[in-house]
């Protein structure tokens, strides 16, 4: 079927798509079309910008700080760690100079919150919502796994096997890294489960400095981590839940240099 793009652009369908009132079947159709025709995608973005302007009522300035600080995102500055200077960790000693801020999520703990928040709501709605949430979760998981697979097979992606440090000699973990795009994919499931309150954190060593790569959340199936270009090495440390600004070098579990 020949789609007349001009008809689509002028139909008002895109406006409804952006507002979220387009019937699901047409949403799917438009999703398909926007993949095929960049003009449609561009028009969607322009329409969105117009809608954002049209219906905006700026919130009072004071709200910004209040609302952002209400996000569960923990700002837990880790105490700067004194590095034991032995040969094994010499390279990280050099690397430990400057660190990026990070603050990553808690475990989603969704199922727990779900139960709590639904108390008192009627049973039917609860079941429906549970099912829908499970479905959405499964779809998100599938989407995440699909993304990972695509990344792994992408030309240029390197498989980097991080080996256990002396204290964690029996462990290893794999990170996939594409130097061109900077994409990093990692999943900590091969590492031993941690006691509550701890999380694995990935680090990319960029120009000799550790850069936050993101936290491992066992509940997440989306394995894309924070991008890194020009990484010379990757490492994983054990950090307090929510992550640290600086890697706890005495709790480095695995690491590997990147093939140059």
């Amino acid at each position, binding site marked *: 079927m020949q789609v007349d793009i001009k008809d689509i652009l002028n*139909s*008002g369908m895109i*406006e*409804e*798509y*952006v*507002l*979220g*009132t387009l*019937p699901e079947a047409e*949403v799917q159709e438009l*999703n398909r079309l926007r993949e095929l025709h*960049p003009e449609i*995608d*561009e028009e969607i*973005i322009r329409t*969105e910008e*117009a*809608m*954002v*302007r*049209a*219906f*905006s*009522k700026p*919130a009072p300035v004071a*709200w*910004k700080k*209040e*609302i*952002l600080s*209400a*996000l*569960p*995102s923990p*700002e837990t500055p880790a105490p700067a760690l004194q590095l034991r200077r032995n040969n094994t960790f010499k390279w990280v000693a050099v690397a430990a100079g400057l660190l990026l801020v990070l*603050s*990553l*999520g808690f475990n*989603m703990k*969704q199922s727990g*919150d779900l139960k*709590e*928040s639904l108390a008192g709501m009627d049973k039917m709605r609860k079941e*429906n*919502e*549970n099912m*829908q*949430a499970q479905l*959405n*979760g499964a779809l*998100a998981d599938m*989407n*995440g796994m699909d993304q990972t697979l695509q990344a792994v097979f992408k030309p240029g992606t390197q498989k980097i096997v991080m080996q256990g440090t002396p204290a964690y000699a029996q462990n290893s973990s794999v990170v996939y890294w594409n130097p061109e795009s900077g994409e990093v994919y990692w999943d900590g499931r091969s590492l031993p489960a941690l006691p509550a309150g701890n999380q694995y954190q990935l680090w990319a060593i960029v120009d000799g400095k550790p850069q936050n790569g*993101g936290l491992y959340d066992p509940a997440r199936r*989306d394995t*894309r*981590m*924070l*991008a890194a270009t020009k990484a010379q090495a990757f490492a994983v440390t054990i950090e307090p839940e929510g992550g640290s600004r600086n890697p706890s070098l005495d709790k480095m579990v695995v690491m590997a240099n990147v093939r140059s």
Partner: protein
Amino acid sequence: MEAEKHNETEFLVMLRNRLPAAYEKLYDMYSGSLNGVIYSVVGDGETARDVLQDTFIKIWENIRLYDEKKGRLFTWMLNIARNNAIDHLRSGSAKIRRNQVASDTLKPHVQEKIGGSSSMNVDTIGVREMLDLLSPEQRTVIEKAYFEGLTRENIAEELGIPVGTVKTQLRAALIRLREYTKENASGH
């Protein structure tokens, strides 16, 4: 456009990894338009603040459920804001259910009618001038679609008019509003 797309993907990765800086940017970009819809539904400033805050918390909690292949991030957030605001009205309580499930916020529209759409405060949100450009019929459908998130079918049922008519009016209204914002953006 490719670069823009790439940036959006990167931005999404940062949101999924819950970088505070990404949420700050998100707030700067969208708090106004989310606040617009919230205010139109719940009115009162303090209440709007609570609902907006709750909206951002839900976005933070459920960001991994957002699938960029299925729609725009803005649309997804708009639904969360709208449903949050409508839920708030419906519950009739100042207490907002903090951790309501994703499914509710992801529903593309609100199935139930909320009590009295007269509670909307469209006039106060600064879009009045714009809405005045529309015919009364167009204005009614756009309010129901944008502020209540009702589908064409819901609107048709509520107003007792054919779905085709709702569709025509809605599209005409949206196109008109868009032209208006375009003219305004380009300084007429």
